[in-house]
């Protein structure tokens, strides 16, 4: 049982950090499909930073700076060049995947993965089995609550939501929706860097090409599943982590009868069903194709 909980926490934590980043972007009116790219930048920077400098803080710091810069680039392209957020986000994801690959090859030649000498600080043996959990797992609930308070219990959160839902309304009370989106994306960049660092340095201490394996997209699915609500989205991310962890257990239980790939597909299928049901509840087929475009103001 404890094993399972640890497995869920370990696989769920990176996902939740990135999901929170997606929530912030979603509320500001941006469909963030660049999460995958930011996450892998964070994962790569943490490992390379530690290997090169020997300091975990330097690794985290480089990751945060790069992710914030990449987020700002995405914001510039979406907000200032009025590019389609979905395609631009996919582009950022591609840049992240390709860029980290390029960076690893530039430094280490054609090596597929990089090992770090040590990982994130852990709880330690005082916590028994749970001692293997990293500090970022422990901090995760703090971030969840912080994002919830920020978006649901402050005036800033209302202004952020207004920037996404009705930018003109935001503008006519003196809020600059473009700036709100920049802040939301950059905060999201920090969260993605942390999520990526937890992925590569939390339990594995290794960076491998494409190691995010679609987690950024799964986080996006969790955001949609949770309807942009931080708690709902976190719940969805947890659900995905549980399904993933149970998938491995179930394989032991059911053996060959249930193909493991089917269990791995469950989160995606669940997202489709969730989005379908929430669309039904909101009622009626919407006629307009939004394409995730930013609303004009």
């Amino acid at each position, binding site marked *: 049982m404890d094993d399972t909980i640890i497995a869920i926490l370990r696989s769920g934590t990176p996902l939740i950090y990135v999901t929170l980043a997606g929530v912030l972007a979603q509320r500001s009116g941006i469909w963030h499909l660049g999460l995958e790219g930011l996450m892998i930048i964070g994962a790569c920077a943490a490992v390379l930073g530690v290997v090169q400098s020997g300091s975990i803080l330097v690794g985290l710091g480089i990751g945060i700076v790069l992710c914030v810069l990449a987020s700002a680039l995405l914001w510039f392209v979406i907000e200032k060049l009025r590019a389609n957020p979905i395609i631009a986000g996919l582009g950022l994801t591609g840049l992240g995947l390709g860029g980290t690959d390029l960076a690893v090859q530039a430094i280490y030649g054609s090596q597929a993965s990089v090992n770090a000498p040590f990982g994130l600080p852990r709880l330690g043996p005082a916590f028994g089995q749970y001692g293997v959990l990293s500090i970022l797992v422990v901090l995760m609930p703090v971030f969840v609550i912080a994002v919830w308070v920020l978006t649901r219990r402050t005036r800033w959160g*209302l202004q952020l939501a207004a920037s996404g839902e*009705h930018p003109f309304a935001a503008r006519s009370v003196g809020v600059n929706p473009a700036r709100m989106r920049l802040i939301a994306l950059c905060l999201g960049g920090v969260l993605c860097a942390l999520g990526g660092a937890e992925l590569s340095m939390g339990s594995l201490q290794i960076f491998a090409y494409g190691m995010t394996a679609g987690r950024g997209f799964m986080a996006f699915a969790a955001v949609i599943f949770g309807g942009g609500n931080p708690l709902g989205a976190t719940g969805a991310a947890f659900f995905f982590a549980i399904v993933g962890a149970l998938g491995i257990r179930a394989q032991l239980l059911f053996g060959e009868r249930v193909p493991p790939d089917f269990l791995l597909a469950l989160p995606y299928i669940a997202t489709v069903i969730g989005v379908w049901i929430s669309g039904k509840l909101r009622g009626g087929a919407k006629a307009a194709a939004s394409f995730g475009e930013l609303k004009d103001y």
Partner: protein
Amino acid sequence: MTNGNATALACRDISVNYGVVAALADVSVDFAEGMIHAVVGQNGAGKTTFARVAAGIVHPDKGTVEIGGKPVPVGNVGRARSAGIEIVHQSFALPPSFTVAEAMEFGAEGRGALYSRRDLERRWTRHLDALGVRVKPRERIRDLPVETQQAVEIARALVTDAKVLILDEPTAVLSPSGIDNLFERLKVMQANGVTIILILHKIREVLSIADTVTVLRGGKLVEGPTLTTEIDAPRLAASIIGTTADGLSDTDRDALVGAAEEDDDGTETAAASVAAGPAILDMRGISTRPDPEGPALVDVALRVGRGEIVGIAGVEGNGQRTLVRALSHLADITAGTVELSGIEVTHQPLSDRRANGLRVIPFERNSEGLSLSSTLWENWAARSLLRDGVLRLISPAKIRKACSAALKVWDVRFSTPNQPAGSLSGGNAQKLILAREVDEDATLIIAAQPTRGLDVGATAFVWRSLREARARGCGILLISSDLDELFDISDRVVVMLGGRVNGEFSRPYHLGEVGAAMTGADR
């Protein structure tokens, strides 16, 4: 022109250009403190732009703004608000998913760290009560009727210590009695020392509420601020319209500027209707499911005869949109029958109804009527392409030629049929829709707000087209929120309230009676 009082808001040499179009040119006005000022003009005269410049939302190309004698940086909402100026927009600017309390809070200034839901609701209930707005703070904006939405928006504008309140066309969405209530509320605020600037376009309303009037035409200041005691309706009408609309009948002119007397004397015969012939449209007992765009229809009966213009009056959001959607097979009909020219079409899709002669000029010209980023010829040809089958081979060159010819007949100003529809002005865009929808096979034309946002010339053009269609024997259903327009060109007026028909009137129309039917007050 005003004397004694200090100046609340002063604008100097304001110029705004959108591309090559000058929305405002060197407008300088002083508004005295503690008064109710009206700014009037036709559509496109620059009223809204002016209001937005004053509120800091639009950055002018040139000019300065002073509030309470102190200069305020232009194009900066935050600074304008802290100087005490607030604006209520024509189409309300509150996020629809917000609760009333959240809508109040998001624009508040000053301290406001964390809140709990209950704190928030308590705080804003007090504020709303003080202003006499009866609404639950937990209700969502999108669930409120328009009059309440407007009251909430005004309350939102007053969360700070507003000295100047600008309302952009606040009466456009209200019933006559709703307008009276609004004016009462404004007078109370005036007594509390707030300077009020009303963007209006009806002379009747200007003369009944405002202390001064300022007239804009074509982005230029033509008059004002003039004390309303020193001006009368005919002079004001001439000032608003200028000389741009010669050849209008007097009744049309009065309808355009909202100068008609309270009681229409009913002698209008210039556009005498063809005697109403057999029914083109016969709706009996129509009920629908609730629609995303308005309340459900309940037991609506409606008849439009050959050569008849039937006007639909009502406060916006009382089922007019559902009615048009039900007639277009876009709302689910649960009971009743619809007949077009004697053929039952209750369950026919829109394409079949169109084949039977139904034509629709929808409410939203730019989203429902046209695809702005598509070319003129594609927009123009859409109806005939759908009529003739989707997999048929076509020749775009031929369609372009036919389109050019048709648009010339309808007096659309355009350079090439390949230009996007979004490059047309509002009036020309509406003519493009007319060119598509008003053809010789049309038997019933539904015209939903066909003149909204159009200037005098284009409005007169639309009216003339509808009257010509009537003369050819078309039945016309005209939905409008402008009673002056309805009274001017409808042969009958049907009032809708809450999805029901709440009264039917024929000439001579009495504003008080129709207004009472719009709000459900006892007649």
